[in-house]
């Protein structure tokens, strides 16, 4: 059965705005994709541990030493807007 997905709700979570046409196309296509992936339910994974990574991952430690890192000026070199050594964004806090 084809799933009905509230694409606009999900798009809002992902901070994407969809045109009407996009929204209806995606709704239908994503419904198809979700129906397609539902065949995974045929596989019994009750006792199977999940694989998040193909290789066993271990925490990597290093000594807590000061090392050279990217200078702020370079890190900011692509910023659409900046002030002093900061990224500048539209005002977040409303005036009282």
């Amino acid at each position, binding site marked *: 059965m084809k799933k009905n997905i509230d694409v606009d709700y999900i798009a809002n979570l992902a901070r*994407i705005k969809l045109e009407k046409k996009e929204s209806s196309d995606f709704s239908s296509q994503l419904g198809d*994709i*979700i129906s397609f992936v539902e065949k995974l339910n045929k596989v019994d994974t009750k006792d199977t541990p999940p694989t998040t990574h193909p290789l066993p991952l271990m925490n990597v430690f290093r000594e807590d030493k000061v090392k050279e890192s990217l200078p702020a000026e370079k890190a900011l070199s692509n*910023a659409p*807007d900046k002030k002093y050594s900061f990224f500048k964004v539209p005002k977040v806090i409303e005036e009282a």
Partner: protein
Amino acid sequence: MPEDFYRFTAHEIKRFISNDETTPVEVTASISDRIEEVNSRVNAIISFDRNDVKEELRRTKDKRAGKLFGIPVAVKDNICIEGRQVTCGSRILKGFRPPYDATVIEKLKKEGAILLGRANMDEFAFGSSCETSSYGPTNNPWDFDRIPGGSSGGSAAAVAAGEATMALGSDTGGSIRQPASLCGVVGLKPTYGRVSRYGLIAFASSLDQIGPITKDVRDCALLLNVIAGYDPKDSTSVDMKVPDYSKSLVNDVKGIKIGIPREYFIEGIDREVKESVINSVKLLERLGAKYEEVSLPHTEYAVGTYYIIAPAEASSNLARFDGVQYGLRKPGNLIDMYKNTRSVGFGSEVKRRIILGTYVLSSGYYDAYYLKALGVRTKIKEDFDKIFKDFDCIITPTAPTAAFKIGEKVDDPISMYLSDIFTIPANLAGIPGISIPCGFTKGDLPIGLQILAKPFNEETLLRVAYTFEKNSKLCGRRPNL
């Protein structure tokens, strides 16, 4: 002495240079001329500047001892080169000049490679056809009406068309192997963790690997030798000795045990592709290898598993493109700024996958989809582990068909996704895979064969691939442009 260096492999050019028969200046001139001659038709290279070439020649002047001295390499548009624009084929990163080199680029620079030309790709590597790039589609050099495969379609087409001697691609679900197959070149996806991902703009971090796309297997070993190895900057790279891959180039497969998984020769696979792969396995048998049919029972679930895991990871990785730190910014209050920027900056397929990924991770669906897929991923990996206890490698077609027509699958995501059906399992399991040319269709389109081996066993891939190449007499066939 030839002047058309664009026809030659890297190891041939290396020999010409070390014998003082030519110079990097002449080699790069030949490749640059070739780009100017054919790129308007192929569109494999999306940015090329003769001034960069001069700069590269200056930079590599004293690198004569380097393993890639004077060799022109095209780099996929998702790998950072300090100071040079990188966009992932997307509007959202237009103008972005990274402040550092990817580790693989550092290594290429150290060995004297000439970084010349950025290779086209599906936007953010989301695609199997190179049609979703904001720079327009790349055309297959064997037939301009067809796709070159994707997402590293630009890298594969550039090598096939002589617009680069070798290239770097990245492979998340087949993005190196499938275009290599469709363009008649060699492409290798290393074991997850073999090559550093530092400086590769992330798509799906548990699946992505950078790898070589080359004209033959010897060049593949040469480039892999340069890029492989542990990198403290990538916590998922593995601290394990890197063998000298050129030692694997032996023309001998005696005693090699090959598994042929029956699930890869199903309905829907093109008859010519199937015949070509089977004939290739028979050739390897005549050369001393043994083959047997095997079963990888969870193969049919691989595409579904991938299209949950990859978009889930991508939706998280692509959250960083929000108009704050780099790239495009469209005005609005903070939330609208994010939304406006992302809506204008991302193309359709990118939005589709972000929304799909967000959906499968969202509250109420996480267990049903994402966690389920991680469980099936384990099953797929176990299938391979089991086979590799008794077999040295697995041989399959790389893709179910030769190159399809431009536009044929654009509006049908599922049929597009299914073109990666044979390459996706290797990414889910983290194992290495190579695609090499194994034949041509009646319509003169290349067919590729995929070899898979257990983790960190690229040597077996190279040995079998090299032996096949030496005995199949297919190598060296290039498209007429």
